[in-house]
């Protein structure tokens, strides 16, 4: 045996490099590098016209504790949690039914779920304005019935409706794949052993689909928290969410360091949630 790597080993290494390299290279350039940039901005002072002045400071992190920003965060979390719960309530039965459909209909139903994504996000959001405004379709209908007008647009309700509409597919798809994967024989066994359908659902189907539930919740919660277009368009700018706050730091306040701190805080929450989800999913998988 010589110390030189065998031809096979070299080939294998080259193969790994060729397959993994481009992906990792892309992530390094477009994920790690920008993240490092954001991270480095957080410890410097704001430049008067944007950018940063390279004088270290801890102020930016201290500002996170300012009640003004904590209120914005609390309000955003409230709306994002509400959106996630509603998405789960609407999404679970939908995903469950799709999973039970005959194969041909399954495809059609899944395409229908994804279809709205093919239309521009802004156009879909503007459609809600057309529906909900005081002269809009819903209120015109109510007026014709001698009711209303009801204040629908520019409320927290309108923001939640918009977020729910935008992100519901992100709940349905992971739920569907979790439910679809379940071995039907488990349900049959449950029924054979005398469990009613409700009992089978609570004791077998739901616990086994829990990883999908958690994935769906994270997928809906995180973008809801960071969205800044929907609060602006459907909330009429009367409510700002964390996303608006971050956007404004860069585009209006010219305070990149504080914007970076806020962005980093949101990323930290996201990473924590993903870890929690992975941990819970593994536990659920082990118990099964």
């Amino acid at each position, binding site marked *: 045996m010589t110390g030189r790597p065998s031809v096979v080993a070299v080939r294998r290494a080259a193969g790994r490099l060729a397959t993994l390299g481009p992906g990792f290279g892309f992530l390094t350039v477009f994920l790690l590098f*920008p993240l490092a*940039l*954001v991270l480095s901005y957080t410890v410097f002072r704001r*430049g*008067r*016209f*944007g*950018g*940063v*002045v*390279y004088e270290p400071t801890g102020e930016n992190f201290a500002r996170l504790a300012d009640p*003004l920003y904590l*209120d*914005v965060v609390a*309000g955003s979390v409230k709306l994002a949690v509400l959106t996630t719960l509603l998405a789960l309530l609407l999404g679970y039965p939908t995903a469950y039914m799709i999973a039970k459909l005959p194969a041909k209909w399954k495809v059609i139903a899944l395409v229908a779920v994804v279809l709205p994504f093919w239309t521009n996000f*802004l156009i879909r959001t503007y459609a809600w304005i057309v529906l909900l*405004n*005081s*002269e809009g379709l819903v209120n015109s209908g109510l007026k014709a019935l001698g009711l209303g007008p009801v*204040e629908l647009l*520019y409320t927290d309700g309108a923001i939640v409706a918009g977020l729910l509409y935008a992100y519901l597919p992100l709940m349905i798809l992971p739920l569907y794949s979790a439910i679809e994967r379940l071995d039907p024989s488990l349900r049959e066994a449950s029924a054979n052993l005398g469990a009613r359908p409700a009992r089978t659902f609570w004791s077998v189907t739901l616990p086994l689909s829990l990883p999908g539930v958690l994935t769906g919740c994270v997928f809906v919660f995180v973008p809801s928290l960071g969205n800044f*277009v929907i609060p*602006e*368009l459907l909330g*009429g*700018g*009367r*409510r*700002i969410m964390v996303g*608006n*706050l971050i*956007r*404004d730091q*860069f*585009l*209006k*306040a*010219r*305070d990149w360091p504080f914007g970076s701190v806020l962005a980093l805080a949101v990323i930290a929450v996201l990473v924590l949630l993903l870890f929690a989800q992975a941990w819970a999913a593994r536990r659920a998988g082990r118990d099964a």
Partner: protein
Amino acid sequence: MTRRVPVAVASACLAFALTACGGAATTDSAAAPATLDANADLSKQSLTISIWDGYSPKDLPERVKAKLGFDTKVAIHDTNETIVAKLTAGGDSGIDVAFVSGQYAQALNAQGLLEPLHADLIPNLENLYPEAAQLAYDKGNTFSVPYTWGTTGLCYRSDLVKTPPTSWNDLLDPPAELKKKITMMTTERWLALPALKVLGASVNTTDQAVLDKAKEMLLKVKPDLLAYDDTTFGDRLKSGEAVLVEAWDGWCPTEEKNIEFVVPSEGSDLWADTMVILKSSENKEAAHAFINYILDPEVHGWVAENILYKIPNKAAMDALDPKLLESYPALAQPPAELLKGESLIDLGEASTAFTRLSTEVSAAQ
């Protein structure tokens, strides 16, 4: 200040992605103005300008090429903040001429980034109103030439508002029937403007006590507002969703029979969008020739006719179709009247007080 951009939010998303990268602001000490050659061969130069989308004729590069003989590239920015961030990012931005609002031109100049203008290379400056050289951010047009100017006021539905508004108080303390039918602007300086004017304060105030009082007034009216809106208030008036809105003069759709514009009695601001030449430009002769070409009445008049903003060009304004001035009375506001408005200036570090105020107002529930 945003411009007539149909989906400003879409571009804001993009801009957000773009501004996330960039470098530090650098401060160059102001160097002596370059010596320029009035007889330089312009065909050997080329120009990159940065301007708001739709803010200049689409065929401008072709027209400049035909008239002056050099190529022009047009870059688009969607907000002052975007272009200022680009210009202060250090290194050569590659931009020769930028269109920015007056207070931003002032800020850029304070950083030593702008080329002092060589008036002898811009003979068309004489087309401008004398008032155009009296704007507080740059008296005498030493580093900027105003492209458009205007003010902020109240735009309303004369058929749906009982008494025509005359005061900012009609907005800040609305009668019951107007509640939930009014909008205010959300960009910080214009958000604060109505309250500051009612308080008799300057739009450029940095007095925290005054700003606190203004905040109280803005918080008080928030529940009565339909929305905060910088871009679509004109459509809201047309549909009747809103009946009274805070608006820039050029954005009030007064061509509609029942829509009127008024500058409240307490006074208002005077904003200007300007053209500036970057010190880093290597095509300064072409840049001057370009600005001179824009000030040609026929070219400059395009802005008034198509964007419906007032322009500080007397020769161009005099040549406008009287019918246009009839449908857009705000266009006919004489410069002397306009100059009663307070010129917005850059507030430097004090601008953070306005940012905080606007965050506090938007965050309040």
